[in-house]
């Protein structure tokens, strides 16, 4: 590939289709560029009043008393609620598709009872005519606390004598319950081969410890909900969330009402990245609505977003890798402690599955710890757990490459996972694209472009995310003009309604514009799991494909009747039905659609699935940086993101996912962190001081889409939303090393951290 005639945003396509792989304008486009699209906070209802939530000022405290009488007496206040207004949770377990969670944890996070476990923990709520009145009324609620010492990092929370968050939480040790009350909710282990023998035969062993700070998903639209507890007992919810059914089921469980009594209408959503899956506001707004008789809208402030939603775990990770002199990795070990926040459930399990996932290593031991700390209860953030893990592994792999004198991509190729490689957590890989990814990186003009000048360096890293399947439903009907209405239940965070419509259009041989997708509410479409896990284009796509095939098959039966032939003698290709028994009948999809009413009635196709055959996705970065040796500021000169998409349905939106995930990873790497004071209060809970990348911080993010088709999807789709956030911090850490010779072991690598590393290397006293 010549550097001169180089076009950015390459798609290394392996199969061509008619609709798939093209770039139609998204179906919801006009509404989104004119301000007409309705997001959760935009909804208006007759009689709407506004809710505000009182939150704990302390990171850890017992609630001794709550006095709401003055707030209730305020003339503009219509209702006041506390956790006493929610039914007791008992021991029920709820499964949102993220794994099972005790309902009492979800309920406790919605409104605290007994203890508050983080600054920002919700305790009470008020609904009033205006938001200003509600906020004023909050000040009238009197709460007495017994302040307790907080614990704020995993290592601190794990030591004997650390303040205990939950008196009833006993460590599950290697799968078995124990009697030990501690902040370690669980310790598990993955074992493969013989680790001692592995390290014994290694020529070089490198072991390092890495620490990463808490970071937030940073979606621009705050959490919002509007709930009406109607006179007929039905609870109607309008909200921005990643899964209407998840909101419905969790809200119903917390309120102890049947799921059929709750209807959730997903509004357009302004970003989620995992953070808009949990329930925070709906049960509170529901009981406020029940008490007041009005619909209640609650919108989170930005400070509350930081302090009281679900950031991703901070972590402490030790990785040890042993290699032979020829670069073959023979042993790998990881000790990973992830902060769960106030309630157990840190994403340590996926982190442990991804830490060595890119490599074929005989001997592995991984110890994972799920640790509670006095911070907001963590939620998923785009490939949760994997970015932390890759920061550790990929930094060490870079160090190994340098010490052995092997090219960093060649070292990875020598050890790359392929079909049949067994991961430490057990399963063997089906067809995956790790090797193809590395080869694309090696052959790219960026990798071979000269990088001259002082304090400049190039770094590479790769990462993996396994992606999800989960249930989706879809129904489809044909209009007389040959267009098709498609009803699905996956909230559209990034253009998926169009990629789903494109897959249906491909089956039916019609244009993408002729399939009209709607994201429907929980009354109108079959159960559909959350928009997350990079599952929508894969799973809801398969649902649309099956519904389209159902539609096509019924139309074949119909046209067979019209032509008086057998269905088996009708063929369908590229939108045209043809008889194949010698007679020369043929009719287009559009023309057949005109005749449906007069030949038997409307045709509706449907599908409801829980698909196997999920394909994981590998991603990689090449990053060029310049480090200012006097300020520690890192400037990104050039950044290329690579990812295996299996098949890019709409390449522009796949590129968009790669660019967006890369930039979130860049922010995570260089600036973002929860800056906590010793009392456990976040000091930078605003978008000024929680520093996310702006347009001025970045160059263009070049992308290369690799396509190693996933055999589990009719068109080869692999989810792409997440794997792209995994490598950037490691790629930048490696680039910083090659620029100024310091190995970073902490995120974020902000100017202070970089300077401290430079000073330490130069022997300058701190």
């Amino acid at each position, binding site marked *: 590939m010549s550097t001169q005639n180089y076009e950015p945003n390459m798609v290394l396509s392996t199969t061509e289709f008619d609709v798939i792989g093209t770039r139609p304008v998204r179906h919801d486009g006009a509404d989104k560029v004119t301000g007409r699209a309705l997001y959760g906070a935009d909804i208006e209802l007759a009689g709407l009043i506004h809710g505000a939530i009182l939150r704990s000022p302390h990171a850890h405290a017992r609630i001794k008393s709550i006095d709401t009488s003055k707030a209730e007496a305020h003339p503009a206040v219509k209702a006041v609620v506390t956790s006493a207004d929610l039914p007791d949770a008992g021991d029920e*377990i709820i*499964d949102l*598709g*993220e*794994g*099972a969670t005790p309902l009492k944890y979800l309920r406790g996070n919605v409104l605290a009872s007994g203890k508050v476990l983080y600054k920002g923990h919700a305790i009470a709520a008020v609904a009033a005519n205006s938001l200003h009145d509600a906020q004023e009324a909050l000040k009238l609620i009197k709460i007495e606390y017994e302040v307790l010492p907080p614990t704020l990092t995993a290592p601190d929370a794990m030591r004997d004598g650390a303040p205990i968050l939950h008196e009833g939480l006993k460590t599950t040790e*290697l*799968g*078995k319950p124990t009697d030990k009350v501690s902040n370690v909710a669980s310790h*598990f*282990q*993955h*074992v493969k081969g013989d680790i001692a023998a592995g390290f014994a035969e290694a020529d070089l062993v490198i072991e390092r410890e890495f620490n990463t700070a808490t970071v937030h998903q940073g979606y621009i639209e705050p959490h919002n909900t509007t709930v009406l507890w109607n006179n007929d007992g039905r609870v109607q919810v309008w909200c921005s969330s*990643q899964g209407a059914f998840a909101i419905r089921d969790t809200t119903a469980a917390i309120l102890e009402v049947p799921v059929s009594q709750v209807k959730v209408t997903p509004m357009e959503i302004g970003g*989620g*990245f*995992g953070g808009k*899956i949990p329930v925070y506001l709906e049960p509170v707004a529901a009981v406020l609505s029940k008490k007041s008789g009005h619909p209640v809208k609650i919108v989170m402030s930005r400070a509350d977003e930081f302090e009281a939603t679900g950031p991703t775990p901070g972590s402490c990770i030790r990785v040890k890798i042993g290699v032979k002199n020829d670069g073959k990795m023979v042993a790998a070990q990881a000790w990973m402690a992830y902060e769960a926040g106030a309630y157990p459930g840190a*994403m340590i*399990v*996926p982190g442990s599955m991804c830490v060595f996932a890119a490599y074929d290593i005989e001997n592995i031991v991984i110890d994972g710890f799920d640790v509670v700390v006095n911070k907001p209860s963590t939620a*998923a*953030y*785009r*490939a*949760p*757990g*994997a970015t932390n893990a890759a920061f550790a592994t990929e930094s060490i792999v870079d160090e190994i490459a340098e010490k052995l004198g092997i090219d960093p991509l060649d070292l990875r190729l020598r050890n790359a996972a392929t079909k049949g490689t067994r991961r430490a*957590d*057990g*399963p*063997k*890989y*089906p067809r995956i694209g790790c090797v193809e990814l590395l080869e694309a990186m090696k052959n790219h003009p960026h990798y071979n472009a000269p990088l001259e000048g002082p304090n400049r360096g190039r770094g590479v890293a790769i990462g993996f*995310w*396994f*992606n*999800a*399947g*989960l*249930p989706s439903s879809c129904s489809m009907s044909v209009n007389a003009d040959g267009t098709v209405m498609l009803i699905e239940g996956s909230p559209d*965070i*990034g253009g998926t309604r169009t990629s789903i419509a494109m897959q249906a259009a491909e089956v039916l041989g019609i244009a993408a514009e002729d399939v009209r997708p709607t994201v429907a509410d929980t009354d109108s479409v079959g159960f559909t*799991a*959350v*928009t*997350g*896990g*990079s599952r929508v284009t894969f799973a809801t796509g398969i649902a649309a494909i099956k519904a389209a095939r159902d539609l096509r098959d019924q139309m074949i039966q119909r046209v067979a009747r019209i032509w008086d032939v057998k269905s088996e003698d009708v063929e369908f290709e590229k939108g045209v039905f043809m008889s194949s028994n010698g007679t020369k009948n043929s009719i287009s999809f559009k023309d057949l659609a005109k005749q449906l009413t007069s030949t038997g009635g409307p045709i509706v196709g449907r599908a409801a699935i*829980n*698909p*196997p*055959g*999920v394909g994981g996705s590998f991603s990689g970065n090449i990053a060029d940086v310049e480090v200012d040796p006097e300020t520690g500021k890192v400037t990104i000169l050039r950044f290329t993101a690579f990812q295996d998409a299996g098949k890019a349905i709409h390449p522009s939106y796949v590129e968009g*996912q790669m660019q967006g*995930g890369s930039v979130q990873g860049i922010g995570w790497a260089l600036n973002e962190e929860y800056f906590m004071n010793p009392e456990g209060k976040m000091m930078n809970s605003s978008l000024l001081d929680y520093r996310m990348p702006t347009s001025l911080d970045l160059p263009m993010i070049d992308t290369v889409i690799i396509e190693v088709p996933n055999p*589990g999807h009719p068109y080869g789709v692999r989810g792409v*939303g*997440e794997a792209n956030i995994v490598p950037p911090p490691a790629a930048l850490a490696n680039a910083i090393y090659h620029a100024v010779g310091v190995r970073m072991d902490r995120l974020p690598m902000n100017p202070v951290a970089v300077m401290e590393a430079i000073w330490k290397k130069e022997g300058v006293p701190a």
Partner: protein
Amino acid sequence: MPTVFIPGSMRELSAGQAEIEVRGSTVREIISELDRSHPGIKDWLVEDNRLKPNISVAVDGVVSPVGLLQDVAEDSEVHFVAAIAGGRS
């Protein structure tokens, strides 16, 4: 015969064995067979006639959406894994 991979947390119940060949054409049959030779394994995995909520089963590398009902072929590999669907974008 299908092979069942015993995760570290269950090795006590399998007398330390990491891989066991077990007869069965569905996951349900395999667990029953396993329990016959290694009592206690079924209680570890199953509750109310389904896999426990925190446990999934992967057959030939693919996490099964139907748990005990999943078909298993002659040369299949069966893994019991923690039930995490993973993260979100």
